[in-house]
């Protein structure tokens, strides 16, 4: 949920450009920014998540051990990585893959596996 500030955890690399948000997506009204400190009474019954789409606003890729690296020169714009990515983390600009949303990419490697031009390779995600 919130960014883990423990030693060793790396701040996600900033995107080249902020990821385009859908116009319809509203800012979350369910404030869980201090959820790390919530005692038993603060939580929703049964751990229900009461607002849809809130992962957009939370880092969910913090436990990644591998990270995709994109060589946009090799990208032919087939969009397979974009379609296959389970976390919608491929950033497309001008019809080509140009970057990864590292707040949400979990390093599964499907994009690298599917890329027909080998424009994506998986690297070890070195933590500081």
């Amino acid at each position, binding site marked *: *949920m919130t960014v883990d500030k423990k030693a060793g955890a790396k701040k996600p690399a900033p995107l080249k450009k902020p990821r385009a948000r859908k116009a319809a997506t509203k800012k979350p009204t369910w404030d869980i920014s201090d*959820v790390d400190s*919530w*005692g*038993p*009474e603060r*939580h*929703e*019954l*049964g*751990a*229900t*998540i*009461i*607002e*849809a789409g809130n992962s957009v606003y939370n880092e969910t890729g913090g*436990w990644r051990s591998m990270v995709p690296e994109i060589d946009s020169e090799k990208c032919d714009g087939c969009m397979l990585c974009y379609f296959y990515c389970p976390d919608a983390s491929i950033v497309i600009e001008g019809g080509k893959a140009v970057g990864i949303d590292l707040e949400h990419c979990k390093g599964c490697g499907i994009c690298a596996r599917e890329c027909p031009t080998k424009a994506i390779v998986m690297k070890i995600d070195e933590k500081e």
Partner: protein
Amino acid sequence: MAPIDTEILAVTGNEAAAEAMGQIDPDVVCAYPITPQTEVVQLYAQMVADGKVGSEFVTVESEHSAMSAVIGSAAGGARTMTATSSQGYALMWEVLYVAASYRLPVVMTTVNRALSGPINIHCDHSDTMGGRDTGWIQIYGENHQEAYDNCIQAVRIGEHADVRLPVTHMYDGYVISGAIGPLQMLTKEQVQSFIGPYHAINPMLDTEHPVTVGPFDGLHGWYFEHKVAQNRAMDRALKVIQDVADEYAELSGRQYGLLDPYRLEDAEIAIVVVGSTAGTTRMTVDKLRARGVKAGMVRVRAFRPFPHAAYAEALQHVKVVGVMDRADSFGAQGGPVFLEVRSALYDCDPHPQILPFIYGLGGRDIFPDNIEQAFAALQKAAQSKKRSSTERRYLNLRKD
């Protein structure tokens, strides 16, 4: 207020429970038949087929599926009920915990029957006693009337804002489920106004407010906090069970409590017992009282949450308490009820001696003579200067 319809019906325990379900008329019933609960499901299916209730009846291929469907239905926002027994209850095991931890106030009728093996279809309390830590509220009934009354009260208890937990109410297989006994019913209108409309919390079918039910709690998440919240709800349920019972008494004229004491005020020896055997025990208490023996009894009603303070208050003046368990906890110091009662009385100073009795496993008959034997053992312990052994005493067991 006296009940409107005071006609006394002769019904089986299963008929009593099915009638209660029919008057509750839940949105959804998902159930699988199993001896000795089958009649409940059969009668309810008939009510659905005859259009007497509006419930969606979901037939499933097993009890694991029944409880899973119940969870889906309840999470969707429907008032949901089911019924089971014995192996069916055991097959629900992992999903029982899920229903409780999702805080879904479903109501289940459980007809108590032994667990295999050797395979046995008769009454004991092994099934639900084994499930005492699943997070379900457990209310044990004594007779046909309670099979009906507890079912109706269970709806209010589980759905209460301070509780929001699943509730199972039980009665003894065959002894109650299949035997004919007396029942006084309320009208459906009375039951409907008593239980009121169902208020779902964060239901999945509210598509304007989409939610995720049952998410992974993270690698270092809030499981611990959620478990503590569940236990606090259990603690709060004690008051709710009593409040609902009091309100039900105004409607029906029948008063229930967290436990059911009998002739305890000046008792020197007393037995704690669960379910239908309470009737035989009460009769034995009267017989002993006529002989001048100061005998008393407590019948267990709420077992989860266990009203330990109420037991301490009810029993602390008694010299020797015998706890009769119709289930055993293998390798423990005694049966499940013994362990609870002994723990509840530990902080009383002085506290009574508490002796464990095991009886009725796999439907073994329990005769008045057996209960007199138990009282005789308590009397002997009360008169002895030494503390008695707390080894299990078996009633009506064939000797080696």
